[in-house]
């Protein structure tokens, strides 16, 4: 765990430049403004436009309005601080870290799930780069045996990153690939095994059951595994992501969210509603299409971005 924390701090430094343009460069619509009913309405609009959702937005706005009426809040900055406090407190630093197997009890297994096209495979390349940078030995398992070109896509990333892939037959049983990957991970003594799975809608019962089966195979093969079950969400998605989080959590016990595609203009605000409903923390954000485009999730920057001009 400690090792991974240092990976993050290294990452932080490496990404300082991106971060500067991404966060510090932001000018907030709230700064230097007097708080009044109009500004409160603007805050409400921003939250909704950021996909935070009607219900969660109302709760947050009610809090601001109450403080405003009681005279506890008078400037735009106060409202921003309030939101940062409210939202950031939802994600403690502790539960934003990747869960790893205890020393000497590896390999760690990371199961990566999500609906179609959200960025699972690319995010795996990012995690892989991150762990490799930390000197860890990584193995990938290509459990997407369904989508055209899916295995090949993962293989290309593996070649570029210098890691190996365990794969199966196109159209074959993904649980069998998971089994082979677990066996190989143990035999080769790798530190981390990351399993890619096919995109599936949370409404497709048979496919969700297939995912449960993959999880069970891992549980059986690797004690304590999967140590981390990541749900990849697309930052451009709206309220449906909440349903995704609920259903994937119910089926395979999601332990963390990888919020991909945050480099566009979408804010990914639905993760706030998700945290309220499911308690699942966001761990990483994806900010581009190359393996370096990953950052640890930063709740403060996230809130600032909602009010960026």
């Amino acid at each position: 765990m400690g090792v991974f924390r240092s990976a993050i701090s290294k990452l932080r430094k490496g990404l300082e430049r991106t971060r500067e343009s991404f966060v510090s460069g932001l000018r907030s619509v709230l700064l230097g403004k007097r708080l009044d009913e109009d500004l409160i309405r603007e805050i409400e609009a921003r939250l909704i436009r950021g996909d935070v959702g009607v219900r969660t937005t109302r709760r947050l706005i009610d809090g601001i309005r109450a403080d405003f009426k009681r005279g506890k809040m008078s400037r735009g900055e106060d409202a921003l601080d309030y939101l940062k406090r409210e939202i950031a407190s939802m994600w403690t630093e502790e539960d934003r870290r990747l869960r790893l197997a205890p020393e000497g009890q590896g390999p760690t297994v990371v199961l990566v799930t999500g609906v179609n096209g959200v960025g699972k495979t690319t995010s795996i390349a990012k995690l892989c780069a991150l762990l490799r940078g930390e000197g860890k030995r990584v193995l990938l398992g290509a459990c997407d045996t369904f989508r055209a070109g899916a295995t090949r896509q993962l293989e290309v990333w593996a070649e570029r990153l210098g890691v190996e892939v365990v794969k199966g037959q196109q159209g074959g049983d993904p649980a069998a690939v998971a089994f082979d990957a677990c066996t190989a991970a143990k035999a080769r003594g790798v530190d981390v095994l990351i399993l890619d799975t096919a995109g599936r809608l949370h409404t497709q019962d048979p496919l969700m059951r297939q995912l449960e089966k993959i999880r069970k195979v891992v549980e059986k093969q690797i004690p304590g595994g999967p140590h981390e079950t990541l749900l990849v969400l697309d930052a451009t998605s709206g309220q449906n992501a909440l349903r995704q989080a609920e259903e994937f959590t119910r089926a395979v016990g999601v332990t963390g969210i990888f919020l991909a595609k945050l480099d566009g203009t979408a804010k990914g605000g639905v993760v706030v509603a998700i945290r309220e409903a499911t308690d699942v923390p966001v761990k990483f954000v994806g900010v581009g299409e190359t393996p370096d485009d990953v950052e640890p999730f930063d709740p403060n920057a996230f809130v600032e971005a909602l009010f960026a001009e």
Partner: protein
Amino acid sequence: MFERLSEGFGKVFRRLSGQGTITEANVREAMDEVRTALLDADANYDVVNEFCETVVADAVGREVTKSLRPGQEMVGIVHARLVELLGGEEALEAAADPERARAAAGPAIMRVSPGPTVVMMCGLQGSGKTTTCGKLAAYLSKRGRSVMLCAADLQRPAAVEQLEIVAAQARQAAPGGAPVHFHGEPDKCAEYGKAVGVAVQVCRRALDAARKAGADVLILDTAGRLHVNDELMGELQQVRRALTPHHVFLVVDAMTGQDAVNSAKAFHERLEVDGVILTKFDSDTRGGAAISIRKVTGAPIRFVGVGEKADALEEFHAERMAGRILGMGDVVSLVEKAQEQVSAEDAERLAEKMARGEMTMDDFLAQLRMLRRLGPMRQILGMLPGVGAALKDAHIDEGQLDRVEAIINSMTKQERRDPKIINTSRRRRIASGSGTDQNAVGQLVKQHEAISRMTKQMAGMSARSKVAAVKELGSAGMGGMVPGLTGMPGFGTKGSTRASAPGKFKQRKKRR
């Protein structure tokens, strides 16, 4: 949701009755429910506000305030305005006369001479462009138009291979159809940011190849990109200039949230999008993004993707989409799906039997199987009005249906023909044979009885009354199965989602 809307209107107006006239302010207040519903469905904040203003103006203009049933009238206006927003005025006319509208519309992808018709796909990363290329190819091939698919995504790892496989899948989905060709130059692929501009050359060569092959349509699968990436957006403009495509389709994930307006607007400004394809509509998203996109691009929504396979493409219907966004369900799609699965003769035969009240357990089983072939129960029920919202929290137990099948399979021929003879000892035997309990057997027999009765009554009814009757069946606690639905000839094809007011379906709520 739809029920909540009508209720919401009803409540506001009821509260006011007896207090004199309803004012514009009251109408506005009632619109708050609509606003929330649309925002929950992911329609853009600003688009929603504008839409609500239009509705208020319309309602005031039509003097809804003096209406005897202002709540219902308001719902009607909201729905009509939404249909108009989604599909233009044509959509309202189409709702009134679907047959004529279909004849007038012409092909979704134009024919040109000399060919090929060039179609350019564009959109954000992962929206479904490559998959949709395959679906369009299958769609065209089935209609006798040959296609060339061009792999113009040189960035994403294995994108060229993906499209090549997709092309093969399209051929399989359209057996005996026109040829589906593939043009790819895998050696031109490069890492991110290193092949910008090369795609233009590849597209040019694909056009030559398409001409040589005599393909009717050339479809360009471009790489996904962010609308704020100036360099990559510039590349698309170059492709557009070089090939002057006849259609530029923007492919959008139906689960997209508020940001849909920003990306759609940027793509439209750069490329003059002339058609939109919404993908992943097989999910349970309400799809409010459709409103946002339509509003900022003005381009018609051409197709809707409803699955990962090559045949999972449907034409767009504004009225159905409006119903879905408002949570009104999609009876028409359900009926169409049913009709694909059931042969006309089978339906006819069954209808006759049902009319005579002679539906046996075998028929019942056949119906159940037919229904299950339509897809997972949850998806089917999601298409029924009133069920969508309720379903959100219900877990449909497919195992329950397995048990029903098992019970019927454990009955003797005689019992299946005439379930009335099933007494306690028979019930015990069937229960142990099917691994269920006597209660379950008893329940099934009772349901069969109720349905036979109902279908007998329905035989002489008009399509619309049938819809109502089926709904009653649902409220009798049988919404989970509704056999009899698939076999009814003529059911619903004329009844639009609007004609069928929401019923009160209660499906079996199962523990999770």
